[in-house]
């Protein structure tokens, strides 16, 4: 029988295009100190540290966890580095939670970050390889063809992507930590923005951000802090090969399997009815309707209809990405953890202007690589 585990502290930086005022160590410390303060703990109360980030090549710092150990109070303690591409912030949270649920540790600090201004992720994702034509143009170039396949398969009208781009930026106006604050955002502004990877326009893509996120996780007998704990009701990770014959690139099997697992653990049979709020990794606008289907919030082909009807808007019946989502802040390594962190804030009632009233159970999801890594958790205000 696994030990119960809860989020008792959260912290994040103000996400920006350039944080020249701090080093990477300063950046992660900022989020970690905030999470410790939220949990009413100090560095000495922590048993172990789990850190995650996207590929080292993004900043050119190989094995940054070695140099960051002292900055995170990890000297003399167990420290783990996790890497699963864009989903890493989610899987880092889950590795930390496993250290509690397995009974090994009582309080674990988990941190994730990216300092995109220190390097060039677009370049790092587009390095020519000897066995492939040098055509890849960053993540957008990889995902845009699969978005086109979704549009063809579902018959979704073109404006759906623009609706998501506007909705998430309007949500970001409620979140003081979000990178993009675009008060004038509307459908026309998105439509007028530059076409980068046809069919994806500039404002349908995520920004490049510097930022960090941190959480303190604790066992049932080690709770602290003034906000109530966010109990973990279910957690799961799945992967699949990037290339195999018959792979469904629009609706990956690993994502379906991961959500089925996490729902079974949480006793959820009807996600749309039983989940109050969700934070889902949507780096390009069209991934909202695609993940609505992949996560079982509707039947296949109907995701865009939920978006179009406003179901996922702040006032809708299934608010998605109340924080503004990846479309508003993208410190890549931290982006998955920000999804997990936002839903913890929601069920703890500490989300401020972006709080959904009465949120009691929430889903956090992250994906990475060529849609081949998935991590998810369901958290709730009730003890499982």
């Amino acid at each position, binding site marked *: 029988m696994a030990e119960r585990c809860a989020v008792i502290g959260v912290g994040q930086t103000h996400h920006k295009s350039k944080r*020249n*005022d701090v080093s990477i160590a300063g950046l992660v410390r900022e989020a970690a100190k905030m999470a410790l303060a939220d949990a009413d703990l100090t560095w000495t109360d922590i048993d172990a540290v789990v850190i995650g980030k996207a590929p080292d090549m993004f900043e*050119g710092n190989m094995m940054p966890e070695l140099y960051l150990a002292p900055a995170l109070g990890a000297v003399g303690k167990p420290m783990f580095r996790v890497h699963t591409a864009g989903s890493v912030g989610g899987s880092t949270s889950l590795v930390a939670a496993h250290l509690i649920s397995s009974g090994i540790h009582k309080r674990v600090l988990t941190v994730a970050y990216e300092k995109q201004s220190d390097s*060039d992720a*677009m*370049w790092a994702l*587009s*390095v*020519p390889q*000897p*066995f*492939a*034509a*040098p*055509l*890849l*143009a*960053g993540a*957008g*170039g990889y995902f*845009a*063809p*699969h978005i*086109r*396949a979704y549009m*063809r*398969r579902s018959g979704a009208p073109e404006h759906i992507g623009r609706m998501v781009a506007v909705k998430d930026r309007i949500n970001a106006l409620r979140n003081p930590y979000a990178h993009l604050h675009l008060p004038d955002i509307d459908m026309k502004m998105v439509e007028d923005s*530059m*076409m*980068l*990877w*046809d*069919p*994806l326009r500039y404002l349908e893509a995520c920004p490049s951000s510097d930022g960090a996120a941190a959480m303190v996780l604790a066992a049932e007998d080690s709770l602290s802090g003034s906000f109530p704990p966010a109990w973990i009701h279910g957690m799961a990770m799945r992967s699949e*090969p990037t*290339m*195999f*014959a*018959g*792979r*469904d*690139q*629009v609706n990956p099997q690993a994502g379906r399997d991961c959500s089925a697992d996490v729902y079974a653990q949480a006793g959820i049979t009807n996600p749309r009815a039983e989940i109050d709020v969700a934070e889902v990794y949507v780096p390009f606008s069209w991934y909202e309707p695609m993940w609505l289907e992949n996560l079982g919030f509707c039947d296949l082909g109907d995701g865009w209809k939920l978006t179009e009807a406003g179901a996922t808007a702040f006032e809708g019946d299934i608010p998605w990405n109340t924080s503004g989502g990846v479309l508003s802040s993208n410190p890549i390594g931290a982006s998955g953890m920000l999804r997990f962190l936002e839903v913890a804030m929601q069920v703890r009632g500490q989300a401020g202007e972006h709080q959904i009233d009465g949120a009691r159970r929430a889903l956090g999801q992250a994906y990475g690589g060529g849609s081949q890594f998935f991590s998810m958790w369901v958290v709730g205000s009730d003890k499982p």
Partner: protein
Amino acid sequence: MSGQTTAEELGPVTTLATPIRLDFEFTPGVAQSRFLRGLEKGKFVGQRCPTCGKVYVPSRGSCPTDGVPTTEDVDLGNVGTVTTYCVVNVPFAGQSIEIPYICAQVLLDGADISFMGLIQEIPTDEIRMGLRVEAVWVEPEELTPSLASVRYFRPNGEPDADYETYKDYL
């Protein structure tokens, strides 16, 4: 030392650019060598899984679904279908192709998996899913064991493929 600017006056160093260069060697192994040697002869060579019968190009030497070695070579033709695509219009460091360009998933006839290919000799606003294309190779004396042997794909003039024929490869 009077007249010199002090460190205090200059303020802290906030950023430092340190360019990195990395040369590496790539060992393709037996399976990818077969594909690369095919390119050197101006043809696409795939392999068939003995269990599921799917044809992989390039083959990694085993079937990712069944986990068995693939041993039967399959010479694939020069012709395929664009299953999906995007038009790249974003500049970035290290880019080797002039923008805008069409980056497509090309499913060769007889193969069960698509790969990324550059499409040319068609305006970017006329590219579409289902377009039938053929590979344009470099001159015979310029062929190398590399995808650089394929200059690009271009429309081959056949009618577009029906969506039903490639919808399961998306």
